[in-house]
């Protein structure tokens, strides 16, 4: 059965990628000579017992090969070491950060996909008209702006209208869940918009190219010759086929979303995974940086796998 083969292949690819990331993660941090990088137990202000416990957990006195095996074992138990900055387990910090990042990035990406697809289709359809030129110019403009700079521009423009940092209002005492939700959404407006605008530019360009390629296919000519309405041709014949490359490209751009979230969260002090990376870099908090890197790689690999399987669902021919 071909389909099963394909699925197994893609899952195997994802698993191997994760393993490579693990090796990289270990090698980058532990094999770099000298520096604090090589020692997970140098948690500042920690008691000697804690340091000793970490050194024992990760077998820091053993050879590098043994250390790698121990690292994998500890990882399987969810032990990523202790953050240098707040002396909390890295895994606990990361869980909090991830739960803050996902809604913001998800909302921004959703908006970008919906509007990007819409304008991309229109741009391809209205090829050569002013509509197309304006759409493409706008999309290229947003695509070209450095993410963090666009974020800062929104801060300047919407100063006083929307909050420019943080996730919740610290002075809101005992909020009901609805008040809390409203508050978080209010704080989310600017960061999610920044991400949405940058991705919007990229998605519009991707969708337009994919649509242009399908519009040149013979079956579009056939549909046209049958006398179908342009709207029906776009919806039923062109867009359906263009969705295939779009799925792949959006999946590839997920790596970019991750990068974008680091910049966006840094500007808006959003307490998510991206800001965790930034803080870890600033504080040289290596266990935290190592953990955050792993989470970022895992999420990108996961979404790539989802896209691969989705592609298979959309077009089973790919398994041939």
């Amino acid at each position, binding site marked *: 059965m071909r389909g099963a083969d394909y699925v197994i292949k893609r899952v195997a690819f994802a698993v191997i990628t994760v393993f490579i990331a693990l090796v990289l993660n270990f090698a980058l941090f532990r094999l770099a000579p000298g*520096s604090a*990088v090589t020692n997970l137990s140098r948690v500042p202000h920690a008691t000697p017992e804690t340091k000793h416990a970490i050194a024992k957990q990760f077998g820091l006195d053993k050879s590098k090969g043994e250390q790698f095996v121990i690292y994998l074992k500890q990882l399987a138990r969810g032990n990523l070491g202790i953050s240098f900055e707040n002396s909390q387990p890295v895994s606990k910090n990361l869980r909090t950060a991830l739960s803050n990042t996902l809604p913001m990035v998800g909302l921004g990406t959703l908006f970008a996909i919906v509007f990007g697809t819409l304008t991309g289709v229109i741009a391809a359809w209205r090829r*050569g008209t002013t509509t197309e030129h304006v759409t493409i110019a706008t999309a290229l403009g947003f695509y070209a*702006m450095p993410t963090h700079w666009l974020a800062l521009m929104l801060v300047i423009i919407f100063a006083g209208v929307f909050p420019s940092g943080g996730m919740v209002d610290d002075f809101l005492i005992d909020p009901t869940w609805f008040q809390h939700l409203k508050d978080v959404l209010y704080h989310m407006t600017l960061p999610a918009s920044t991400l949405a605008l940058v991705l919007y530019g990229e998605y519009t360009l991707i969708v337009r190219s994919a649509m242009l390629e399908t519009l040149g296919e013979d079956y579009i000519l056939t549909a046209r010759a049958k006398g179908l309405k342009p709207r029906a*041709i776009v919806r039923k014949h062109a867009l359906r086929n263009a969705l295939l490359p779009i799925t792949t490209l959006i999946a590839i751009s997920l790596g970019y979303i991750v990068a974008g979230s680091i*910049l966006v969260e840094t500007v808006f002090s959003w307490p998510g995974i991206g800001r965790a990376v930034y803080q870890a*870099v600033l504080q*040289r908090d290596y266990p935290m940086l190592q953990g955050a*890197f792993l989470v970022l790689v895992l999420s*990108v690999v996961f979404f790539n796998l989802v896209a691969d399987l989705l592609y298979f669902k959309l077009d089973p021919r790919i398994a041939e």
Partner: protein
Amino acid sequence: MSLLLQEPGLLAGDRPARSRTGLLWDVIKNQPSATIGAVILGIFIVLAVLAPVIAPYGLHEQVGPVYGHPSWAHPLGLDDGGIDMVTLLMWGARISLVVGFAATFVSMVIGGTVGLASGYFGGRTDTVLMRITDYFLAIPDVPLMIVVAAIWGPSLFHIIVVIGVLLWTGTARVVRAQVMSVRERAYVKRARSLGAGNLRIILRHVLPQIAPILIASTVLTIAVAIFDETALAFLGLGDPSRISLGKVIENAFQRTAISSGAWWAIVPPGAAVALLILSCSMIGRAMEDALNPRLRVSHLSAKGFRLRPLVGRGRDAV
């Protein structure tokens, strides 16, 4: 006059076209967006190269108060150290362009070599190289760059290498696909039957054919490299002793330009980066469009049913 633009079939054709390297020029001349892009990029390069000569003030010279307002003497105001913004932008563009070009060069060499070897030799070489490329593609660039830059320590050289080593995957894939089709053409087989070695075939017959797509990919990679440098600098991983455009943005952000109301310290450097990325994207995209024969025809154009010229105007239209 370019052969390519007049004969759409030539790209898939059998004959090697000698004038193919003129494509960059043709695209720039004939596509308005590429022309605009080339002009912007040209202006940046001239300003950056001439920065030591034409910059109005010294790079480390305090010429007025902290965050001094824009005036006739300082059209874009002063930064947090009282340094003229126009001067900073020129020197910043210089470093940003150096990083962009150097990192792109590194990634072109790696990507070009991998793509050529993979497409030309095929078989096991291809399988192994493409596997490696796939894995590189699956691991997100920017976090890896951040980690490596954080561990290695900030320096211009490290940044160039880090960006260059991580950006080659796209190029490798594009080049490979192109090489695979060139390899099967009759003149390549003819050259081989006449006894030409692999190296000669690659350098004389394959490389010139893939040059346009390689150039398009290069131009697009420059944009990404400049963006990445800006991002790394913003996260505090830039070379502290060099002023790049990314560094100027970071300085303004860290030293509260926004709450001081000093928009002039933060808007122009970002706009300059955006313009640089925009100009490279415009040139690269126009070239890619011109090289993709599938984009020439649209069976569904808004104004009635006819083929629409994509490349060139009037006589040159295809």
